[in-house]
């Protein structure tokens, strides 16, 4: 059993790295900013090692390890604690977070080279990793909320990393505000637990400890009706963080941040925190059928909806962003149909291949001079073979092609949804299946547009590119610090799916090890590997790839030209291209019309005329009275005397009268 202090080290090492960079290196030794990169890499590496030890410890114990919670605040009967939860979910998340973080930090040393904010970048990255680790380790609801907000803050800081770009500053603000709407739901859920401690305290449970809440929900102490509302509140937070409909609009805009940030925060870890949160409170969700159905439907709709938008984007990072939203929808869908193990499995594999794809997109952008617009790329296959091969592996994994990792996790989800048999599960199964086809199409569309054909000029041709190089852009393979992490992640994306969750026993790894391991405490039946479902989804994915090849892969004259497709499906094309007008709806209708013109202007009016009016009336009364009364001070001594005399007589008169 691993001592608690060692687990705390996973949290404190990145924190120390952040403090040293932010407190020492950046203010005093900014000339040696490169040290910040190496320090962060060292911190992540040691955190990764300890995380693996922690995970191994959980595997050996065959169960979560309980640590006594530390008292933080006692207010009357309310006990707020700090503690560590170490179960299968935490162990997996720790390894995912630290491993992807390590790869991204190594990659960033090359990608961020020469940036003025180099030390600041690594300070934020350390802070983010620390917050994320704090979130997955947390045992109390308050702790979860604190780190939940901290990762949101880091996301804000990193999206707005190039704050001198107005679009980046706006995107950072948008991400913060939109996720805050969801966080409000989470806060309400926590407040409910806060004010209803007595219900749980009667059974000796603390309503502010996650495990106790789950126990209470499973034992029926929290009734199904209450569980619904609690779960919906918590789910609202998850919807915001994981960019599910209708709070998804911030994630595509978050691509304004540096690409490694997109890989770490907006693909692999932070956005998965929403899924993690639902998984953490899974018994609570399970206590309410309605909440589970809501999670499944929102997830399923998001999976399909985001995939449709991804079909028509020209910015490679936006394609990946919508793909991320879609895959997070998949995870939510899985949780909603009760496929807990499959959801975490997909989270696990997705973190590797989506991190890989984002880093790959950064690599191609690096090569083509800083543009992300695929219309100005092309022909990079021969120039950057390493990036191409790793990107291809990532795309195949995401598309769910046998035997790469995405195939196993996606299939597990679909099989579970199909196996459930109820209406909601069947519905989201079809949504997920269509999304799988689209996923394959848009990934290979991106792949063909980027790597095949002729090079189309890069940033020098892109009118919207930030930095215009003089003359031609000369594409080149990225340095080893960028290619190395790509290769490591590609190996993980390719192999890890089958290795950790095989369909036949692999000697030391038993059949369905991962899902059994993660969901062991929930006593679920893991469905059998469903060959028809796997075949159908594979055929659909292959169809998507073939269609993408037909439209974008063939040189010069495409078999089906994209323009023709756009004409044939014009209304749909417009709908997808304009992202269902969600941004316009929020911006023009909700923000401008309802909030600004309705609410804000009403409040402005009442502030101007009611509040300020009252102040002004008080002011006028005082001033006017003063003006009138001041005439009495005329310097005529005898007038004053008269006033005093009459006053005395009056006072005595009144006194005598009322005595």
């Amino acid at each position, binding site marked *: 059993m691993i001592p608690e202090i060692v687990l705390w080290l996973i949290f404190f090492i990145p924190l120390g790295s952040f403090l040293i960079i932010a407190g020492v290196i950046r203010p005093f030794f900014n000339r040696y900013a490169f040290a910040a990169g190496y320090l962060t890499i060292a911190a992540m590496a040691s955190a990764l090692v300890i995380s693996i030890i922690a995970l191994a410890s959980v595997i050996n114990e065959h169960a979560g390890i309980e640590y006594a919670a530390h008292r933080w605040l006692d207010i009357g009967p309310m006990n707020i604690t700090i503690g560590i939860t170490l179960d299968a979910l935490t162990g997996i998340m720790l390894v995912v977070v630290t491993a992807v973080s390590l790869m991204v930090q190594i990659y960033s040393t090359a990608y961020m080279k020469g940036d003025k904010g180099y030390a600041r970048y690594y300070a934020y990255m350390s802070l983010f990793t620390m917050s994320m680790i704090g979130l997955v380790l947390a045992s109390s609801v308050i702790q979860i909320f604190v780190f939940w907000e901290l990762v949101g803050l880091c996301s804000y800081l990193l999206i707005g990393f190039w704050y001198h770009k107005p679009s980046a500053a706006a995107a950072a603000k948008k991400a913060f505000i939109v996720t805050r709407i969801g966080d409000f739901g989470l806060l309400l859920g926590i407040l409910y637990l806060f004010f209803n401690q007595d219900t749980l305290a009667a059974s000796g449970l603390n309503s502010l400890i996650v495990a106790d809440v789950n126990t209470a929900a499973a034992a029926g102490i929290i009734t199904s009706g209450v569980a619904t509302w609690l779960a919906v509140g918590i789910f609202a937070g998850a919807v915001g963080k994981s960019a599910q409909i209708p709070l998804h609009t911030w994630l595509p805009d978050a691509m304004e941040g540096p690409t490694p940030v997109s890989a770490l925060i907006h693909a692999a870890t932070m956005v998965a925190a929403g899924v993690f949160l639902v998984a953490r409170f899974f018994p609570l969700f399970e206590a309410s059928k309605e909440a589970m159905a809501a999670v499944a439907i929102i997830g399923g709709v998001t999976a399909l909806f985001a995939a449709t938008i991804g079909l028509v984007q020209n910015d490679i990072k936006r394609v990946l962003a919508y793909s991320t939203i879609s895959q997070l929808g998949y995870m939510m869908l899985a949780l909603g149909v009760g496929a807990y193990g499959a959801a975490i499995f997909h989270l696990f594999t997705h973190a590797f291949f989506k991190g890989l794809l984002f880093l790959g997109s950064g690599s191609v952008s690096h090569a083509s001079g800083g543009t992300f617009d695929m219309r100005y790329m092309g022909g990079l296959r021969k120039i950057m073979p390493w990036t191409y091969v790793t990107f291809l592996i990532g795309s195949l994994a995401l598309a769910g092609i046998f035997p790469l990792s995405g195939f196993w996790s996606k299939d597990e989800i679909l099989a579970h949804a199909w196996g459930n048999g109820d209406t909601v599960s069947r519905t989201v199964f079809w949504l997920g299946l269509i999304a799988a086809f689209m996923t394959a199409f848009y990934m290979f569309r991106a792949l063909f547009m980027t790597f095949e054909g002729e090079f189309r000029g890069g940033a020098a041709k892109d009118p919207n590119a930030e930095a215009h190089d003089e003359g031609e852009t000369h594409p080149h393979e990225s340095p080893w610090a960028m290619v190395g992490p790509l290769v490591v992640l590609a190996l993980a994306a390719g192999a890890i799916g089958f290795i950790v969750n095989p369909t036949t026993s692999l000697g030391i790894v038993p059949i369905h090890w991962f899902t059994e391991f993660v969901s062991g405490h929930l006593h679920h039946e893991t469905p059998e590997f469903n060959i028809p479902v796997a075949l159908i989804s594979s055929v659909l994915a292959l169809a998507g790839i073939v269609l993408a090849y037909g439209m974008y892969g063939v040189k010069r004259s495409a078999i089906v030209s994209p323009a023709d497709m756009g004409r044939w499906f014009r209304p749909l094309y417009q709908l997808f291209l304009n992202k269902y007008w969600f941004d316009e709806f929020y911006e023009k209708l909700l923000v401008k019309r309802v909030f600004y013109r309705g609410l804000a202007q009403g409040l402005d009016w009442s502030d101007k005329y009611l509040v300020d009016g009252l102040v002004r009336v008080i002011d006028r009364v005082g001033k006017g009275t003063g003006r009138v009364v*001041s005439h009495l*001070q*005329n310097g*005529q*001594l*005898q007038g004053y*005397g*008269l006033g005093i*005399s009459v006053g005395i007589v009056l006072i005595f008169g009144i006194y005598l009268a009322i005595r």
Partner: protein
Amino acid sequence: MNLENVLLVGAIVFAIGLYGALTKRNAITVLMCIELMFTAVNITAVALSRYVIPAAIAVNPGAVPETAMQSLLTGQIFTIFIITIAAAEIALGLAIVMAIFRNKESVFVTDATEMKR
């Protein structure tokens, strides 16, 4: 000669003094009227001292506390003090009137309005 009559005299003198102090323009007249008001107060103080406490003693000598015996002449002593203070005050007042007169060539209180707003 009883308490009511003496108090009535005091009140009348006070009223005359007040009337004069509020209506006369000449500052010296005003000062004189203030003296009248002092006098009225003195009359009242002496009258109350002369009539109230001795009367109480006469009714029931044993019930009167020692302190009442000691304050038998309070009014009279007070009057002497007031006369003294009034003399000092009138000297001060006349000096102020002289100073105003030097500045304004006038002793009318209606002309001394520097303290208006």
